[in-house]
């Protein structure tokens, strides 16, 4: 029975990977643990996954190298139209989605031009703001349901 259950519950890679991440429920975790104790192949595979994970975590951490927060704060303070949360909310609430997206583009373009103080970076930055243009309305972060954790966060 023991041997049989060991053979039956051979985990696939997603299961081993989720086991490593602590993302299996108690029952699954127990079954995988039992199998790992009896199966050198899967144990070696898990060791590979662990080593990979450790390797990624050991990668050097790049840093920005300056205080972006200060820059952003300055830009927000200098903005001619201070963001009034209430007014903005009213805008979005009252507008159909397509118009909302257009407003995003307008705001984005404004953002882009406020950003640039005469540098070569203009074109790519402006182009990047077309993200609002090319994405379906559902992709906009504003009010998107999937941006919100739906509970059960570990």
């Amino acid at each position, binding site marked *: 029975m023991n041997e049989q259950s060991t053979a039956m519950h051979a985990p*696939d*890679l*997603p299961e*081993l*990977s*989720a086991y490593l*991440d602590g*993302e299996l429920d108690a029952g699954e975790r127990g079954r995988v643990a039992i199998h790992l104790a009896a199966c*050198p*192949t899967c144990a*070696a*595979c898990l060791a*590979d*996954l662990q*080593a*990979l994970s*450790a*390797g*990624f*975590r050991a*990668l*050097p951490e*790049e*840093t920005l190298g300056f*205080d*972006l*927060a*200060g820059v*952003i*704060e300055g830009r927000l*303070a200098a903005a001619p139209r*201070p*963001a*009034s*949360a209430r007014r903005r*909310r009213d805008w*979005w609430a009252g507008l159909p989605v397509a118009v909302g997206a257009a407003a*995003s583009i307008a705001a*984005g373009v404004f*953002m882009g031009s406020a*950003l640039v103080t005469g540098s070569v*970076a203009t074109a790519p*930055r402006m*182009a*990047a703001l*077309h*993200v609002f243009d090319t*994405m379906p309305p559902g*992709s906009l*972060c*504003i*009010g*998107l349901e*999937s*941006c*919100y*954790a*739906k509970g059960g*966060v*570990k």
Partner: protein
Amino acid sequence: MAGDAESELVARAQAGDHRAFAALVRQYQDRVFRFILRLTGTRDEAMDLTQETFMKAHQALPGWRPEAQFRTWLFRIAHNAALDVLRRRQHVEFVSFADLPAGAEEHALPDPARQPDERLADRQSVELLERTLRELPAEHREILLLRELEEMSYTEIAATLGIAEGTVKSRIARARSAALAGYQRHTGEHRDE
């Protein structure tokens, strides 16, 4: 930062407190930068995109609700910004962002005869691992960054990428399989069986 303190900051930022927003930026600027840099690969572009991400986040603040985790919400904006840049570079792997068809769902187990754990520790291995990561399709790279560097749970990754948790599980496994294969290919160039 504790969740409550952070939500309080976001709420203040929402009410127009620029200093509170700056505190949030300071908390996340390096992490967002790192994420975008490893996705796009160029430092200058990553710096621009990081700034743009925070400006977009500020713009989108009215839509933030207290149930949202600020980090996943912010990384979703960063993800969208980076994705757009990669699309414009015509990175085909990001255009076909959907998961592979059913036939490709089989996961080959990595070869246990290899022992990457002994090699990952040294400096040369770090370089090979960096190279491996760069060569991965962006959607694999991205999900590994969120899992391994940001240490997000599957629930958080699902919220960040806008995909189902089951997809997170299978995509992470596929990404790890591809990374191991890539890494073993690189190290295998110098060692024959």
